[in-house]
């Protein structure tokens, strides 16, 4: 078991890749064999993610190192100095936390897809793209090398756009795919420019090596600006959010949740760069306030645009955009005060990071439920739906749970993380907490409107039947996660979120020391 735990970081990337390339070959044997293979790969990946999380959180979040292709990562020069030149995977509390989120979302998305695509053919390439996207997201979250991060960023961009434009018979999905691919490519090129600038200045690509060598000169600030622009575009922060409703709205329903995990992975990349790579060599107060301003804009614009939508998937997409703002707000407050490190800064970090997990679960549940609704009624327009609660009782309850959790109503998990964010941002500036609370109330109003339009109403003829059990089980699993994390938030915050927040807030020296100090 320890051998498996030791190799878990690289197996998390290699096993989905094996699945992605093996699915078309096994798909020739028939649909049942292909579904079993994909399910097996998804379960294996989730098991390794759990193993990795158990080992990292069991060691109180201390970072651990995995070197690709060799015993040690340093090559001793004739002068006796040793530079880290191999590609490493460095896992600390935050990486393990993100790996848990990704594993949950891709597992439920894959199992939902089995019955979602039951009466259509041609699904082999769909699963191949899903596995490729999974491998890319895990690669982005576990790597310790800047160029490796860029490569996996591009892998996820290509796989995500392939999934957005997968249904080639729908014309809007092709338009969305083109726009999103062009924007993702430009953001990836900005990131590559920044990596090139840092390499040219300091001669290394390893995150820990760069972190110890950074001085904060003009080129570093330019590189930081490029990285911020590229990763904020990919995460969907306003004013670079234009692609997000198209992308989440046009992708097949289970894949919209995985695309949200993709955006959260680039948000993780942004946090890793701000806290671990740059740390205190830049003016963190200014940068923190830039993040806070972006966060407020995102929260507000996301919710207000969601109010006026008639299309259910675009509405939930705007909801997802606004929740990214909450994560940015929590971590931005933490960054702005990270010189003096008061207590409320740490609470803000905990809130922002916990919200990443809660948002993934709630948005996943909402997108799956919306997929069920669209499949059952055949339309995405809210004005043409009605009265679904009479025949689809389970779906209406699950949708209500997801909507209330996202809007921050107790006792669901959204309330726990949002309360931490409200509390901490109030201590920094009361205006932030006011905007955040008002937007949560607006989001609740939006979802009440959606629920009334889609589910309530008079019973009419020709109501669709309840969804089959294959689509019900992933939704129930996500709803259970939502409820359990809402009823016992303290336990989960202590076990999972605090090591992750520690890794960003205090863990920069440990991260660097693991690579440079010891070996």
């Amino acid at each position, binding site marked *: 078991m320890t051998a498996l735990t030791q190799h878990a970081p690289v197996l998390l990337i290699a096993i989905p890749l094996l699945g992605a390339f093996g699915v078309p070959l096994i798909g020739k044997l028939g649909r049942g064999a292909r579904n079993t293979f994909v399910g097996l790969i998804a379960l294996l990946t989730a098991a390794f993610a759990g193993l990795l999380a158990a080992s990292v959180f069991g060691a109180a979040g201390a970072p651990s190192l995995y070197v690709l292709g060799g015993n040690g990562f340093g090559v001793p020069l004739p002068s006796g100095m040793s530079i880290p030149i191999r590609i490493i995977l460095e896992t600390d509390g935050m990486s393990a936390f993100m790996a848990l989120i990704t594993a949950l979302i891709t597992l439920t998305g894959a199992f939902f897809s089995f019955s979602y695509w039951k009466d259509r053919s041609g699904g082999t390439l769909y699963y191949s793209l899903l596995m490729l996207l999974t491998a890319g997201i895990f690669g982005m979250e576990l790597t310790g090398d800047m160029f490796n991060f860029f490569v996996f960023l591009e892998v996820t961009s290509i796989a995500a756009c392939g999934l957005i434009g997968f249904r080639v018979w729908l014309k809007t999905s092709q338009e969305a795919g083109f726009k999103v691919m062009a924007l993702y490519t430009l953001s990836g090129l900005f990131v590559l420019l920044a990596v*090139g600038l840092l390499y040219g200045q300091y001669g290394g690509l390893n995150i820990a090596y760069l972190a110890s060598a950074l001085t904060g000169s003009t080129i570093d600030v330019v590189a930081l600006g490029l990285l911020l622009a590229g990763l904020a575009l990919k995460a969907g922060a306003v004013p670079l959010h234009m692609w997000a409703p198209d992308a989440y709205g046009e992708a097949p329903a289970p894949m919209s949740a995985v695309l949200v995990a993709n955006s959260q992975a680039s948000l993780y990349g942004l946090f890793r760069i701000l806290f671990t790579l740059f740390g205190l060599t830049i003016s963190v107060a200014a940068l923190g306030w830039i993040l806070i301003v972006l966060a407020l804009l995102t929260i507000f614009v996301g919710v207000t645009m969601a109010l006026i939508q008639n299309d259910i998937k675009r509405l939930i997409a705007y909801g997802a955009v606004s929740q990214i703002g909450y994560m940015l707000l929590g971590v931005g407050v933490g960054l702005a005060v990270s010189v003096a490190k008061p207590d409320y800064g740490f609470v803000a970090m905990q809130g922002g990071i916990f919200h990443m997990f809660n948002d993934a679960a709630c948005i996943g549940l909402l997108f799956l439920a919306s997929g069920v609704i669209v499949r059952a009624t055949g339309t995405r327009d809210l004005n043409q739906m009605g009265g679904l609660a009479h025949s689809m009782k389970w779906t209406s309850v699950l949708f209500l749970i997801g909507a209330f959790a996202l809007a921050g109503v107790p006792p669901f998990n959204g309330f726990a993380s949002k309360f931490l964010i409200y509390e901490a941002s109030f201590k920094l500036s009361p205006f932030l907490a006011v905007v955040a609370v008002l937007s949560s109330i607006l989001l609740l109003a939006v979802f009440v409107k959606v629920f009334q339009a889609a589910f309530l109403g008079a019973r009419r003829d020709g109501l669709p039947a309840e969804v089959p059990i294959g689509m019900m089980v992933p939704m129930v699993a996500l709803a259970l996660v939502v409820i359990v994390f809402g009823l016992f938030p303290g336990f989960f915050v202590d076990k999972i979120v605090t090591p992750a927040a520690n890794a960003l807030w205090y863990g920069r020296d440990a991260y660097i020391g693991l690579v440079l100090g010891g070996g």
Partner: protein
Amino acid sequence: MNIGNLPFVVAALLVAFGIYTFLYKRNLIKLVIGVSLVETGVNLFLVALGYRTAGIAPIYTFAPAAKQMVLPTPQALTLTSIVIGLATTALLLSFAVFIHRHYGTLDVRKVKELRG
């Protein structure tokens, strides 16, 4: 002959031209060409990072004795970036083909079904 900062200036010009083309042209294929120009500029920037004056290619097979070599790592980075650019351009052009089949036009101002 010392070429100074000329490769970096050219790389910046290429990136600027590419962004201009992406923002101000109307044909979808020209947008793809704009993205490709930005990629080319970034690749040129990466290769120019490794150049050392009067260096030779970083290959040991039949290398001339005791000369300085240019850095090989940026060349590996550029190669990876070219491969990624190939996949990206292929996907963008496939989407352009499908858009033409559905909408009948390649004018980006007429391909605006998703609004709001």
